[in-house]
């Protein structure tokens, strides 16, 4: 059976019109969904230009928006995978804090900045593996397993640091350089963020891992009966999320020059909100990286506008809450229209 498969494949009628004709249509539907997000972003930009013509469109403000978005952005990429895979990861903020503390202990710092970065990523991945193992093989509900990790990781971070903020020492300033050194006027950490987004997009859209993620989230029973190792894949998804937390830890260390158990408080909510606004179904099986990033940028932009205009942070939270609801309501309407 596999023989004709292989020999015929490249020459087959594959590239005929219908495929060419419909793919853009499908893409168009996908983009239509993103179009709403892009429009929302555009409106926010206009609001910024109108209310603060003097300092909204400045290079320094735009860079500060991107730097702010970078940390949560990296976490959001991991969260998108977990949520498309039908799960949820509440522990991201706490795991990032733990990774930042672990990487900035005096012991770790003595090995230099490269080891610190590797340490942060390993700690994050390790915590993610624990989450994934508990969920996939221990059969804990994702909400519970990652809630437990949230509490425990934060506690461990406090213990390791004695609740003190750990400064990055001068000889390890290479880490801090990620936020201060610029290429083409943009800080390195923004490039790291962009790299993670691109790699995430490739992983989700061009590899078997990504395809399986959609399958496991969309219909776990069908995935299982098609011969996919659903449990192993689930574990890997949480490990991936943890790894993203480790990378985010490096970025927050660079931005704040510290490792601290208080880093990343409530990041999990921002990340999940961004993913939802981006059109990913909380029930799994559907979603995009691009959408999540647009969702995150909308959130970050709102924060920025409120700060620039000197508005109350409480009102800012109310605005964010409204945006989540409106975004989900709009997407539900889209879904209905797409149904046959």
């Amino acid at each position, binding site marked *: *059976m*596999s023989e004709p*498969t292989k020999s*015929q*494949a*490249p020459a*087959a*009628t*594959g*590239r*005929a019109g*219908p*495929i060419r004709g*419909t*793919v853009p249509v*499908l893409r168009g539907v996908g983009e239509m969904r993103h179009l709403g997000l892009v429009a929302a972003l555009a409106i926010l930009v206009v609001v910024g230009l109108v209310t603060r013509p003097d300092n909204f469109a400045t290079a320094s403000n735009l860079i500060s928006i991107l730097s702010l978005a970078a940390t949560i952005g990296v976490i959001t990429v991991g969260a998108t995978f977990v949520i498309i895979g039908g799960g949820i990861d509440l522990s991201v903020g706490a795991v990032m804090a733990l990774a930042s503390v672990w990487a900035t202990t005096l012991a770790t710092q003595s090995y230099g900045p490269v080891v610190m970065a590797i340490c942060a990523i390993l700690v994050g991945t390790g915590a993610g593996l624990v989450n994934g193992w508990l969920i996939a093989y221990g059969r804990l509900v994702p909400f519970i397993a990652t809630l437990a990790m949230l509490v425990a990781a934060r506690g461990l971070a406090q213990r390791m640091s004695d609740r003190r903020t750990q400064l990055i020492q001068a000889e390890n300033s290479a880490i801090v350089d990620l936020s201060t050194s610029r290429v083409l006027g943009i800080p390195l950490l923004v490039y790291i963020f962009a790299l993670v987004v691109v790699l995430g997009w490739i992983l989700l859209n*061009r*590899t*078997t*891992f*990504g*395809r*399986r993620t*959609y*399958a496991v989230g*969309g*219909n776990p*029973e*069908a*995935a*299982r*009966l*098609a*011969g*996919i*190792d659903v449990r192993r894949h689930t574990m890997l998804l949480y490990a991936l999320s943890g790894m993203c937390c480790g990378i985010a830890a490096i970025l927050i260390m660079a931005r704040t020059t510290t490792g601290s158990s208080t880093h990343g408080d409530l990041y999990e909510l921002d990340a999940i909100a961004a993913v939802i606004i981006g059109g990913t179904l909380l029930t799994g*099986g*559907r979603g995009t990286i691009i959408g999540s990033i647009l969702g995150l940028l909308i959130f970050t932009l709102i924060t920025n506008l409120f700060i620039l205009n000197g508005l109350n942070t409480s009102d800012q939270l109310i605005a964010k809450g409204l945006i989540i609801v409106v975004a989900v309501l709009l997407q539900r309407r889209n879904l209905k229209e797409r*149904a*046959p």
Partner: protein
Amino acid sequence: MLVMQGIVKQFPGVRALDGVDLDVRAGEVHCLLGQNGAGKSTLIKVLAGAHQPDEGTILFEGKEVRPTSPIDAIRLGFATIYQELDLVDGLSVAENIFLGHEHARFGFTNRAAANRAASEVLARLGHPEIRPSTEVGRLSPAAKQVVSMARALSREARLIIMDEPSAALAHDEVANLFRIIRELTAQGVAVVYISHRLEEIREIGDRVTVLKDGRTVAVGLAARDTPTSRIVSLMTGRNVEYVFPPRGGRELGDEVLRVENLSARGVFSDVSFSVRAGEIVGLAGLVGSGRSEILEAVYGARPASGRVLLSGKQVRRGVVGTVRHGMGLAPEERKAQALLLDQSVTANITLGTLPEFSKFGWLDRKRERAEARRLSEALDIRPPDPERPIRTLSGGNQQKAVLARWLLGGRRLLLLDEPTRGVDVGARAELYAVIHDLAKQGIGVLLVSSEVPEVLGLADRVLVLREGRVIHEGDAAGLDEHRVLDMIMNGKAA
């Protein structure tokens, strides 16, 4: 008491009910008989308010009624006891009995009163030993059934519909069930009783209505005196034309599958058989006979003891292993178990063999699309556009996509569970041809279908199952539908 006339219910692609008449008298046990797919479940759902009929009238106690929701049906005095009991495991017995009509004042439940009332109802059913405060999840299946019935009673149902109530019960529990049914009917309650077991119908039933292909073919037969042969022939003589490809033209090769003493406690026991390359082996049996479960066990998706050998080698248990060794399953519930409805036809076809389309995890999407296109054309999947979301395809074309999934990657054995369920007549013939082609290419096929003619028409060899055991094995050519149904229903290996 209840008269249904000319009930029609249309689903996309299928006419599930096509003019059903039913006439139930007060105080009788009215049995509903029919093969799977005859329309029994749909009819029950119409009465339970879950489906609205497209045509026809329902008269209840002389008045025309039209239950538009489950609540509506309950208000009318209809209670349905489903095969899968619809109880909330986490609530107590009393809470389940009075769910939806609690003993409450200003929103506060009165637990003592509810427990008292529940005790009363349970005592009336002859089960005072079930304590109202027990959590339902801890009860045995038989006790759950009693709770279900208590719920129907507490709502003062005038008509109780029971869908295979004895399926989950042991023998002495069935006797108790019958005692309860007799008490109910003595009080003027009408019972619509659905079962595949003829001996039960003989024992408890008063009259029988037979459904076939969504139509009533016989009304009000005497349950005790009508000969079995008459009932079986009413259930079978069918209108659906089966178009099977001619047998033969296939060469049987070596044995691809050998199953030895496969057992799963309480589901099936001591099942042994083999399938040769290019051979189609059919499993015939009722729901609950273990046919789908045997398929799942062979596939490694369900734990079982015994040995499964693929081409002489024992396979590592678990689906990941069996798929790698060349098995494929087209499961019974296409939408729930096989398809990613949001994804394209292509993604659904390649789901089982992704590693074939990738290098180091990198998907070769061009090749993937080309292969999906080739298979779409080979199986004539319509519309011929593999990039469409699969949810927009008809059932028959979705099923073809599931089959296409296992045309990839050099399968040696295909397990097909109800391959033509929910598929219209035209597409059926095409699926039959596809299945034959598969066998012709040297793939072994193990087929399960609740439609006996389908098993007989497609398979070379047939295994008849009853209550988890193989009671007959033989060439399909030497069997007819009558004999198989007789074995399935009466247990005689005639």
